[in-house]
């Protein structure tokens, strides 16, 4: 199967931080959790995929097209939502959507109305009047109304209460069942336990592993005991501050 998203040898260097080389892929109709600690390079990777940040080297293909040369065509078919980003917080949702839909060839007003209804969004409200969970749902509504085939979500569950998080994960699962691919970054490993098919784990700018969730967990099994994702992450990342402080 040709991957929907393919990242190859992506490298981006900042003063004091180097990302990569990063390689992984996302298939259609799958949920990929992109995990790592805060500052591990998740957002830089996602921004590089979207050409918001320019990598020093490497390549990104989406829908079989190199993103750099086909940015406009690629963005017609994908949706992006950052964690707590507000677009035009004081404009009405109906005004924002009224402009946004002009850019999408596949915009479907009937779908838009359906998702407004499903998510309980009032188009007369402004983004600043929405809770964090509703903001993510608004971004999803926009993405799904132009029939996005790939959703790239940067920490969509951060700051959400447990019920909203659970609801969002249910939505991801339903979308996957309809053939939509979801790539979402998170440091909340329990999100992945519930819905991810694949896990890509990044640590200090480097990919530690990228595999199906089962194979990923199996690779960390010891003496027949399979740890959960949280145990894996803690085992890989935890620094011994007691020892450091004792020096």
């Amino acid at each position, binding site marked *: 199967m040709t991957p929907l998203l393919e990242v190859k040898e992506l490298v981006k260097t900042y003063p004091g931080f180097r990302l990569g080389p990063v390689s992984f892929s996302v298939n259609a109709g799958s949920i990929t959790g992109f995990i790592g600690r805060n500052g591990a390079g998740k957002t830089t990777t996602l*921004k590089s995929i*979207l050409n*918001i*940040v*320019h990598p020093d080297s490497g390549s990104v293909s989406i829908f079989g097209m190199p993103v750099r040369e086909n*940015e*406009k*065509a*690629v*963005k*017609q078919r994908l949706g*992006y939502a*950052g964690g707590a*980003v*507000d*677009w*035009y*917080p*004081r*404009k009405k949702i109906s*005004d*924002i959507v*009224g*402009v*946004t839909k*002009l*850019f*999408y060839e596949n915009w479907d007003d009937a779908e838009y109305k359906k998702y407004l209804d499903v998510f309980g969004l009032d188009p007369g409200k402004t983004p600043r009047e929405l809770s964090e969970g509703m903001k993510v749902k608004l971004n999803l509504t926009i993405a799904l109304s132009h029939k996005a085939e790939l959703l790239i979500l940067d920490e969509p569950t951060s700051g959400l209460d447990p019920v909203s998080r659970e609801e969002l994960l249910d939505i991801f699962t339903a979308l996957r069942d309809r053939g939509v691919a979801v790539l979402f970054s998170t440091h909340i490993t329990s999100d992945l336990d519930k819905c991810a098919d694949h896990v890509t784990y990044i640590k200090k700018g480097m990919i530690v592993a990228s595999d199906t969730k089962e194979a990923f967990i199996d690779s960390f099994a010891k003496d027949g005991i399979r740890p959960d994702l949280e145990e894996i992450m803690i085992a890989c990342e935890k620094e011994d501050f007691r020892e450091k402080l004792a020096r």
Partner: protein
Amino acid sequence: MKNLLVKEIRLSSHILTYLFLAFTAMTFIPGYPILISAFFICFGIFQTFQNGRETNDVLYTVLLPAEKRDAVKARFAFVCVIQLAAFVLFAVFTALRMTLLGDAAPYAENPMMNSNPVFLAFILIVFAEFNALFVGPFYKTAYKFGRPFIAFITVSMITVGVAEALHHIPGLGFLNTAEKLPVQFAALFVSAALYAALTASSCVKAQRRFDLLDL
């Protein structure tokens, strides 16, 4: 490109950008450095840049299926639309001052700049300065606008000073009257060409910068 311009008007722009067009009426104030009104028009446009930063306009725009270069071009187009709307108002008010109000006492004894084609030429020069010193350099970061705006304030104020001083130089008194109109219209034509050239080159440079920018 058309959709991006619609986005500029409906989502990105700030109401003050439009309201500040009323400053064109400063053309009628006697005994006042009326060229300052061109600065106020640009200050109104500046509010849209400030609004854009507060509302994550740049990031929203680059996530749309549109060329980044077109996003810059659309912003320049929006700026030019506002400036040209202001210019039309300035031109109408100038025509009124030169015809119906031509003999009005406050203007006959006006020690400061009168409105005439040379005044309109200076308006375009201030607008060109805004586009070259503020709008273009803003796209070095698409975030920081303090330094470019200070550069514009400095140069535009010097321009106002020069414009006010010129007609006091012996032989150049006609610059503040309705005399030698062919010369005045030639100055207007030259400044219009300067406006077009500086705006276009600033736009091209900004497009290149913005394309390479990490947001």
